[in-house]
Structures are given as C-alpha cells and as structure tokens.
C-alpha cells in the first residue's frame, strides 16, 4: 500500500508528464461546482443551527 508521502510525490511529479488535457480551460465549471457545494453545505449547516433544540423562543416558555 502506498504511503501518503509517495502519493504526494506522484501528485507533484505528474503534471510534467501529462499534458494539459484534450479539453482546454473549463475552470469556470470547476469553480461553479466548488462554489455551489460550499454554499449548499453552509446553508444546510445554518438550517441545522436555526432548527437546533431550544432555538425557538416558544421552547423556552
């Protein structure tokens, strides 16, 4: 089984061996995916915080 360090070395060495790929560019799609995922996860985390037990003012009465 490969260690983490050897995998890291492979990851660093590989860009020189492989070209930039047949599809050029496309970073907009990449950023869109990461941005949407981050936004969805953050919104869900906020919804959990808002719905936490005892968060409602009615619950304290």
């Amino acid at each position, binding site marked *: 089984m490969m260690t983490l360090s050897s995998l890291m070395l492979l*990851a660093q*060495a590989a860009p020189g061996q492989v070209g930039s790929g047949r*599809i050029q560019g496309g970073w907009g*799609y990449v950023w869109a995916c*990461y941005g949407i995922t981050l936004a969805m996860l953050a919104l869900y985390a906020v919804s*959990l915080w808002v719905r936490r037990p005892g968060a409602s003012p009615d619950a304290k009465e």
Partner: protein
Amino acid sequence: MKRLMKWVLPVAAVVLLGAGWYVGLAVAPPDREMGDVQRIMYVHVPLQWMAMMAMFINFVAAVAYLLSSGGNVGTVSAKPRSSSPLVSLLALVVNLMAWVAHILKSGWGLLMPGSKEDEARAKQDESGWKLDSVAEASAEIGLVLGTAGMITGSIWGRPTWGVYWSWDPRLTSEAIMLVTYMGYLVLRRFVEDPDKRATWSSAVAILGAINLPIVWFSVRWWRSLHQVQSSPRTVDPAMVLPLRISAFGMLALLLVFLGYRYRQAMAERRAEMALPDALPGDVPSSLPQNSSKVA
C-alpha cells in the same frame, strides 16, 4: 462525546476538505482527456459516496425500526391491492419482520411481568424513536448531499458530454433515488401520528433502498455515457491522495450533520410524546387518539 461533535469532527471536516480540495485544485495533475475540468471529481465523488452512505444508514435504521416495533407494523396491509410482484414481496417481507418482532416481544412480556414489562416497553419505545430519528436525519442529509452531487455532476457533464443532462441509466436512477427520498420526507411531514409515520416511512425507505444498488452498479450493467465509478482503484495514483482526503473530510461532515440532525429529531419525538393526547371535552372519547390527518 459532546466535545467530539462540537469541535473535533467539525474541525476535522473543515481541515480535511480544505486540504483535499487544495491538493485537488493546485497540486494534482490535470486529466489526459478532460484536462482541468476533471478536478470536479474531488467534490462530486465524495458527495455521491456520502449521499449513498447516508441512504444506506436510512435503510438500516428503517429495517431495525420495523424489527424493534413489530406490533405497530400491522398497519401495513398483509394483502396489498397492487398486483405488482415487487410490492407483494415487500409487503410479505415487512409483515414477516413484524410477526417475528411481535413473537419476540410477546415472549419477552411473558418473561418480564408487571412494572418490569412496562419499563422494558418504555426502553423499547425509546430505542424505536432513536432508530426513527436516525432514519429521518440520514434521509434528509442524503438528499442534500445527493442533490449537490447531482448538480456538480450535471455541471461536469456540460464540458465533457456537451450537455448538462442526459437520460443515461446512472443519471436517471440517481434522479429516481432523489425523488424517492424527497417523497419519504414529504410523507413524514404529512403524517402526524408518530407510530404510523415511523412505520410507513420505514416501508418507503426499504422501497427506496432497492434503487441504491441499481444506482451504484448502473455504470457497469449499462455501459453508456457515464464513466465507471471513480475510486482509488480506477483513477491515476496521483489523483488518489486528494480524492481520499476529500472523502474523509466529507465523511466527517456527514457525521457532524447526522449528529446535529439526530438530536433535533429526537427532541421533536420527545416533545410529541410529552404532548397530551387531547384536552378534556375537545374530542369524543370514542375517537382514536393521536389520529393522523392522512389516516
């Protein structure tokens, strides 16, 4: 345990996801065919893995709930009206589980007379609500992660396939899976009686879980537009490290979400159980208490 949920897991999730995505975006090589667009894999694949895991947890909790509360499962008809063999088989399995659980429960009652029996029943109810809460929490989180996975997959499809959506077997089965779990959560919102809600939604969860292996193996059974699963065995070794780190980060996030959503669901169950069945004089005593809007 509280420290783990409040600090250790959330920090681990943020650190691992941040590190995994950084290595994926800045260090890992571009794909030979897809170029830099392939970097979407480090967010799309962990999302899909964890969505599937959450839905599998939902299935296990649903089956365990039905087994632990056999007496309530009788609400599922022993003779389904539908002639579909799949529905008949499911009804048979659910009823079999109910009978086994009922026999076990009856035997336990004979061994535990009086107040001990009540105590045992209260404990059993509590464990049943715990399982139901786990099922509810995992379905909601699975739906959130699965939806994010589908959106990222769709965006990935545009530069590689030329379209955002195709009725490919993997995409179609995934869409059916998301609609099923949406229906599961809608059903839970509409049924007020906690017992019926838990039993009916467990049956839907088992039905929904039939689709899980179809989603997973669809890319092998029907070779079409979607590539086979990306995993450490199928991707280049240079891409394994960011994929693994991101997956563990997403796993930590899944556990954090599950923990918080489970606590919320349990608080709701306890509040429902603490509510009086009806105010005196409001409802005739002949009517069933805790009746559902649907039933």
